[in-house]
């Protein structure tokens, strides 16, 4: 899976696309893993811009959880932005909105303060 990495305001922005489910979660995890080292103390957060993600299932959410945990262990941050309405609902129903930093868009994720929900 190509995460189309770019740099914005000094932060790494990753843009997964399509469905993240049992068919694609392993590829998503493999693609995400090399970028996680950039989530470290003092660095800008690694941002997952999810505008292109149509759907994320439980196993995809688990990949996010594990990645966020690794970032936290490294004193860094992994945040998500740009959730489509459907994915936003999945986050809310699964309560991932309570354990993840969720922002309306990448700019909000990189703003000095807040913008999150």
């Amino acid at each position, binding site marked *: 899976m190509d995460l189309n990495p770019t740099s914005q305001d000094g932060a790494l922005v990753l843009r997964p696309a399509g469905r993240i489910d049992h068919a694609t979660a392993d590829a998503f995890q493999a693609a995400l893993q090399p970028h996680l080292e950039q989530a470290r103390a003092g660095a800008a957060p690694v941002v997952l811009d999810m505008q292109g993600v149509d759907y994320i299932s*439980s196993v995809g959410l*688990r990949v996010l959880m594990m990645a966020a945990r690794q970032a936290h262990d490294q004193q860094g941050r992994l945040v998500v932005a740009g959730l489509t309405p459907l994915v936003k609902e999945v986050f809310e129903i699964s309560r991932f909105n*309570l354990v993840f930093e969720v922002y309306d868009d990448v700019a909000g994720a990189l703003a000095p303060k807040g913008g999150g929900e």
Partner: protein
Amino acid sequence: MKIRFWGTRGSIPIALTAPAIRAKIVAALAGTAGRTLDSPQAIERYVDEELSFDIRGTFGGHSSCVELAAGAEPIIFDFGSGARPLGQSMLERHGGAAQTYHVFMSHVHWDHIMGFPFFAPVYIPGNRIVIHGCHAVLEQAFRRQQAAPSFPVDFSQLAARIEFDLLVPGKRYRIAGVDVTPKLQRHEGDSYGYRIEAQGRCVVYSTDSEHKVDDIDERQAFIEFFRGADVVIFDAMYALADAISVKADWGHSSNIVGVELCQAAGVRRLCMYHHEPAYDDARIAAVLQETRRFEEITRSGARLEVVSAYDGLELDV
């Protein structure tokens, strides 16, 4: 077949408190403004048709106990505290006539056996109670629960004939007129689900079962276990975010995984069960609405009906 739920709460029984009941009454009365409720019929219609279940009722507080009426001999899943009202109901239905009961045990943790000493049929001579399960410690757990100093009546004093039947997971049995297949589940000390097939219908009882969402083999095994079931009674105790983080390895699952597995298995009805004891009625009702919405937005085939079990719920299968 008919399913009757006698205990649906997870881990420990709970009781409604006076403040909680008062809050329900206040909410109910608040909705009467401008209505003419001048007869018992009008009041009942208002309660039944205008009030939501979490206001007019309760999901209940007894721990796990489910009755399946599929033939002449009653089938029961687990002996949680719901076994007490079930026992009273059995006496009302059968009077003093000797009866054989078949009980399938998910496991022998406290909340699943605590109702047994209060299940009145165990004190009536002539009754036969066959306790089926896959744990080698099955009999020991029941005997130990009633040993001094924990209970005043020792197991040896029970008047009914109590039998223990050790089953092998994955093997199909013919018991009480139904086909039963136990399945090993992930839970501390192991637990077992039961797939019941009879009269062309299928009910799966699967509680105290944690699902590791990244375990592909386990996922596929449960899809096969649930395949085509009319009803799956599913441990949906936690939100997914909790189940795979702070409550990982606590031995329970989530509404999200319940929907995903049941959709993949072509199940007709998901019945969420083993409710978190910290949740009040409003919270469980909200989880039910959210789960129905999740099913709707993830549906790719036939609709999966989602219900939430409550003490007193009856489902025709």
